[in-house]
């Protein structure tokens, strides 16, 4: 379906409360280059966040499914992005650590309902098992809602969930 066109850039992690990495993904004939700003989560770096989300076409707001506090924090990030971010920003809510199902404190239904209410994407992921990680980024890449970035993808080049998403987006329009 898709392949990694090249591996990580060799940029070292010299950063200011954030790390910068790039990843290029080929989706059939289209190449999507992600410029990823991975911010520091500590509250004391909060004031630097606008510097990183300014001009961002997409944001992944991450919480830990074993921590209700982190879910509450994620909601406040979503609010902040909707209020102060790029008006056309694509927001994806990611419930990470889905491999820790036995310690789960945040139900997927709750998060999904919140995401639907706020018109943002939602996916539970696990960086540890790689579950849904590529899917999360590809879904963001495949979303055609970026301003000035109309990703033209052939529907048959995408996995079924992405086709369904595209179809539902087209119906909304």
């Amino acid at each position, binding site marked *: 379906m898709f392949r990694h066109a090249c591996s990580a850039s060799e940029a070292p992690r*010299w*950063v200011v409360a954030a790390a910068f990495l790039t990843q290029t993904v080929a989706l059939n004939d289209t190449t999507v280059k992600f410029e990823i700003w991975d911010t520091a989560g500590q509250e004391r770096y909060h004031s630097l966040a606008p510097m990183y989300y300014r001009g961002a*076409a997409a944001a992944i707001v991450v919480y830990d499914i074993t921590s209700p506090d982190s879910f509450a924090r994620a909601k406040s*990030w979503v609010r902040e992005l909707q209020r102060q971010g790029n008006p056309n920003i694509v927001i994806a809510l990611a419930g990470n650590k889905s491999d820790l199902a036995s310690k789960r404190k945040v139900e997927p239904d709750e998060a999904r309902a919140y995401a639907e209410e706020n018109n943002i994407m939602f996916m539970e992921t696990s960086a540890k098992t790689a579950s849904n990680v590529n899917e999360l980024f590809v879904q963001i890449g495949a979303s055609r809602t970026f301003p000035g970035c109309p990703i033209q993808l052939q529907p048959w080049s995408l996995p079924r969930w992405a086709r369904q998403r595209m179809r539902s987006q087209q119906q909304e329009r």
Partner: protein
Amino acid sequence: MAAQNKTFQFKLVLLGESAVGKSSLVLRFVRGQFFDYQESTIGGPYPLAVPCCAALGPQAARGGASPGLRHFSPVARVARPTGSCDTRDVTRVTTYYQMKHVSPCLFSL
């Protein structure tokens, strides 16, 4: 089906509380790796390198103003307050690429 071969580039930011796995998600996506004990993203070993590069400006980045680099000795780098830089430069992609060329010089000082 016509060959399109289009390239799209966009900025993506990860936000969320600390220790939820932002860096791990990125590392998994970009390098396919996972570490049980991923260190905290607080600025790495050279926390002020980016503002310093921004302060040097594009001219220095092209390698044309090497004398300016002398001001950025490790001591000066630590002493320089982060707030003194123009943060707009830091987020500009073009400046970033220019900075990338300066950073090895900075680190070798």
